[in-house]
């Protein structure tokens, strides 16, 4: 199974991961349109964490024991048995935000642009390859192969 690995040792704090995540989660998926003043607010599933000289990107780890899935009151949050990916069925989510309260990584955000649904990293399933990883200029985000127990 594939996961995104974040390496604080070479994170340069540029924030491009967030920018491209926002683009991917915008209606147009186009960087010049996504940030137009008239465009809907942008949302990123990636956080850039910074303190002094330290920085790293954090996002969903698609936990083996995903507390967000366990806490989900609707069954919208699922862990795919094949890919191990934790994804939200946005048609089922009612925006109770229990997942936000459960996630120890703080990796789920409120998407209030079109209804009220949770938004989280799905490793760019639709796009095919995580945009943050592709656009990280220093390989601080890379794809790693892992095994779920």
């Amino acid at each position, binding site marked *: 199974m594939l996961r995104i690995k974040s390496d604080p040792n070479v*994170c340069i704090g540029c*924030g491009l991961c967030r*920018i491209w995540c926002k683009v991917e989660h915008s209606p147009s998926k186009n960087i010049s349109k996504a940030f137009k003043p008239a465009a809907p607010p942008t949302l*990123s599933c990636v956080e850039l964490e910074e303190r002094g000289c330290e920085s790293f990107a954090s996002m969903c780890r698609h936990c083996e024991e995903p507390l967000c899935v366990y806490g989900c009151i609707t069954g919208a949050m699922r862990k795919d048995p094949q890919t191990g990916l934790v994804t939200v069925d946005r048609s089922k989510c009612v925006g109770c935000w229990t997942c936000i309260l459960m996630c120890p990584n703080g990796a789920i955000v409120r998407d209030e642009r079109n209804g009220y649904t949770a938004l989280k990293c799905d490793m760019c399933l639709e796009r095919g390859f995580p945009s943050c990883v592709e656009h990280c200029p220093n390989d601080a985000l890379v794809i790693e192969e892992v095994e779920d127990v």
Partner: protein
Amino acid sequence: MNAPRNNSRNAIQAPQRKASDFRIRSNRLAEFSVERDYDKCIKCEVCIRQCSFDVHYYEEEEDLIKHRSEDCVGCQRCAVLCPTDALTIRPNPAQYRAHGSWSSEHVKDINLQAETGGVVLTGAGNDKPMPVYWDKLLINASQVTNPSIDPLREPMELRTFLGAKPDGVEIENGKLVTSMPPQVQIETPILFSAISYGAISYNVQKALAEAAVELGTLFNTGEGGLHPDFYKYRDHAIVQVASGRFGVHPDYLNAARIVEIKIGQGAKPGIGGHLAGEKVSESVSITRMIPAGTDAISPAPQHDIYSIEDLRMLVYAIKEATNYRVPVSVKIAAVHNAAAIASGIVRAGADVIAIDGFRGGTGAAPKVIRDNVGLPIEFALASVDKRLRDEGIRNRVTLIAGGGIRSAGDVVKAIALGADAVYIGTAALIAVGCTLCQKCYSGKCNWGIATQDPYLAKRVNPDIARKRLVNLVKGWSHEIKEMLGGMGINSIESLRGSRSQLRGIGLTTEELNVLGVAPAGN
């Protein structure tokens, strides 16, 4: 946007400013012009986050990213990372009135010195438009009468050996009986030149070391010592003993494949070095064996070397210390009497002479020295090689040429002029990301190369840097093989000193004589 609206790190780290920090008002024109296409700018603040010179900033009232062109060093970091190509950094079109004698650079430097009263510092190598003799030399190729060789189909040897060679060899019963001085085998005639940990970051030296391992060549510690973590690369390390003697101890000497005595550096012949205390981090201080935060000053001369005899004492002291297992190299800057000096160095017992031309790089040098002192490597190399041949002692040393080797073509020409191998420093750093902005001395290298600031140093990912270095040297090695094959030569050692493979173009007779090269068409 959730990102902090100011360059928070700089805000945190900015020391309390004192009245004396406010300099004389500057009259200098900005060197670069930052042009922002506001139609494209998405206010993502990547430029703000990436510029260590604080050129870009967020203007809250107007909700716009703005910039101060006067602080821009033209490193292009922001332009490269801008996700919407909204930034163009180019030389400031506004210039002082054109003058054939007083260039804008002269006017700016004079203003700078009028403001500061100090030496104008710079980094990287001589950037003046002086003749580059590599570009005036042409390489031969075989046609009809001597067949060229296809390196993809036939063996092609780039392997060479560094170290003194005996005057002759005796073989008995198929076995070599001559006792050989220590030899270091390298798989390509390209070595990474001396760049100290201190001048460059940990990550860059690590990448150089790992690339050297992967390529079967050597990296050079410079005069900054060998970090404890890097002893694992000992089989690919040249360690320097320089005037400051930083980081020199028995384990250090014995860790090396070659010990190099640094007499001079092409970018700043005749002067020493000065690593500012700010760059002497805890880790640098351990490696250099000096207190953290203190300036690391390398004296201009080695204070125990005032003659060839003194040099010989140091060469043999090192040989004793290393039990004669490793070749000892002496590195000198290319200066007017390089040939005579080289002759003396051979007689002092050195196994390797490294000659560094005046376009060689530096982490910091007075600009007036960098731009005015020394010789092009091409002349120094040719004259040293000729002198040693004339004296019949060329076999007693390996010659390594450095200082301005920019391409595989330059490598081939250097070897044809008499070098056994070349040092590349600037080319390697460019492969890692350097854009030759020449602000190495500031310690604020935006590309994370010439800095000890942990925030900036992370910008070089040693894995990426290693791959890029390996790719560069592999690419050059392929090209060298192609050129060798074209000349009908199947071994790099057969090219060494083969000046008949070169022709000069646009050179005066005197220049051709020094280079020992016939004019093109001859």
